[in-house]
């Protein structure tokens, strides 16, 4: 148990929490605008593959990051257009988008790298030290530019919703579309804008995964998009609280990794930990968190 209270565990929780943080901000953008977004999972996946393809073809991880963001935005735009213009049920569209991303990335993996499971390895934005001590891990996490990009995602989201005209419009179309329209705000355009922001954040989350593992592997998002969405709901659709929930989920996963090599607890049961924590969080907050009034009504 004492291993839970170490610098290494703190660093590990933060590190694992980062992709959740970025994806959760994406979820907040979309859902605050009223567009239900279970497509975060697939968006992370294409973001991760975009980062790898961009990096291997250009040689620069920064180009890879850019590709991840573009891929994320494109996929979210498909979701946004299907829901807003095509009037598809947002969950149906999200399910289809996730399937498209899962099949599409596996297809591209074989076309680019002739592999059914994973890509060749890529460098990260900066080289990380191989020192595995807690303080070194914390330091390298804090010094990694992708960490700061995620922090930027959060800061921009918080700032936009409190200070910018666009952010306030997003909140308006999510709470009261009719009133927003009367005030001259285009509902669809604002929602599409919010969905683009969602694509940027979730694409970033995917890029983070790819740079962290130095490769793309089939299905590597592994349900993280859904866990991030759970964090959004558990956090009552507010950036700060959702971020806190993400860090809790990160800690649960770090604990899982920590306990995996312990013999007194079966590793199959430990594997369940992050998912059980997510379920409890989902159940525990309801009644105390209110969704945006117009969520899912389009």
């Amino acid at each position: 148990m004492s291993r839970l209270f170490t610098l290494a565990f703190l660093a590990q929780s933060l590190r694992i929490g980062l992709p959740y943080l970025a994806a959760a901000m994406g979820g907040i953008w979309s859902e605050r605008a009223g567009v239900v977004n279970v497509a975060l999972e697939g968006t992370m996946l294409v973001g991760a593959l975009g980062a790898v393809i961009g990096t291997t073809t250009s040689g620069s991880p920064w180009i890879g990051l850019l590709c991840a963001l573009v891929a994320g935005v494109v996929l979210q735009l498909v979701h946004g257009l299907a829901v807003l213009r095509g009037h598809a049920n947002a969950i149906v569209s999200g399910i289809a988008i996730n399937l498209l991303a899962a099949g599409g990335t596996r297809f591209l993996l074989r076309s680019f790298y002739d592999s059914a499971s994973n890509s060749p390895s890529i460098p990260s934005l900066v080289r990380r030290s191989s020192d595995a001590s807690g303080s070194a891990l914390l330091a390298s996490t804090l010094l990694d530019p992708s960490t700061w990009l995620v922090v930027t995602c959060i800061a921009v989201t918080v700032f936009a919703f409190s200070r910018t005209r666009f952010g306030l419009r997003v909140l308006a179309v999510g709470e009261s579309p009719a009133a927003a329209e009367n005030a001259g705000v285009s509902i669809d355009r604002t929602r599409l804008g919010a969905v683009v922001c969602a694509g940027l954040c979730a694409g970033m989350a995917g890029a983070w995964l790819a740079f962290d593992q130095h490769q793309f592997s089939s299905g590597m998002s592994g349900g993280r998009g859904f866990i991030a969405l759970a964090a959004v709901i558990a956090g009552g659709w507010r950036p700060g609280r959702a971020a806190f929930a993400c860090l809790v989920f990160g800690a649960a996963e770090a604990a899982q990794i920590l306990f995996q090599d312990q013999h007194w607890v079966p590793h199959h049961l430990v594997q369940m930990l992050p998912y059980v924590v997510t379920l409890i969080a989902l159940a525990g907050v309801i009644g105390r968190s209110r969704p945006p009034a117009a969520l899912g009504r389009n």
Partner: protein
Amino acid sequence: MSHRSRSPARLLVALLLVCLAFDLIVLGWGETPSAIARRLFSGTWGTPYGIGQVLFKATSIAIAAVAARIALRAGLFNIGVDGSIAVAAIAVGAVGAKLPPDVSPLVAWPLLAIVGFVAGGLWAMPAAVLRARFGAHEVISGIMLNKIASSFVGYLLVRGLAEEASVHTRALPRGALLTRLDHLGAMFHGLRGSAVNVALLVAAVVVLAWSFVARRSIFGRELAAVGASPSVAEASGLPIARHIILALGLSGAVAGLTALNDVMGYKGYAEEGLSAGVGFTGLAAALLAGESTIGLFAAALLFATLSQGGLSINARIPMDVVDVIVALLILLVSSGEGLSRALLGPPAPAAKGPTSPR
């Protein structure tokens, strides 16, 4: 809701567009579409064995599609079908292996069907209760329960359910195995080697039975009322929470019946990852079929063909192209009404009106 109503014309246009997308992807890969299509056909409907395999796959997909449809009727997306399927399979495998070696099919078949039904339904309970009592989104809890299910199954296998030095349960006794269709008579001899078994009939009965219940019974109509508008249904005095729990529970329970096909009809034991992804394919088939019964059979056959055909084209082009095609088809069909209106202008007044479920 758009996933309930289907127009044949739009469906046809969506199918044509998807064929076009398939052609483009195949050309992009550097193959000729006609050659790939021929390979896909000859690997499925081209031989008796291929037909048998398609029917075998369609069996589980159709059962899973009914499971998804039960929840959809109440406006719920049961993504957790895969978890129910995994847990039901291991339960059927475990109980089946404990049956005496000379057990009669008259005892074993119904007993194991009940085991699968109950296990699948129980596994859906957490998501059902979380949704009904706390409003927790069933899509997220379903995904979480699927992940938990696969760890749980692994745990059970490691902790004693698996046969010594293997990763599957002990073999079911002869009497617990479902008869393969090729054993039924000379008529079916061509199917030899394929896994299609009498669970196919179970699937057909399940599809027809649910269609009847959904349309004719009070329960089916009440579920539709809950699905159309929970607030209106509540105002008219329906116990919403109970209906949500019943819908998701029955959905999981029916999903558990896939164990008949995969465990009792095919493998003869349960193992990790057996029939993985069938629940998701079933949901896709249910979304595509809308409310139509014939549509459900057609969608199950289509996805079974694509899944089996994917194997036969995999040497030439990655079979993942199939998932892409299915995803595009769902996207087009679900957004087709709005898109055609946006592109072609508003439809004739007669075609307008509420798209409320029957």
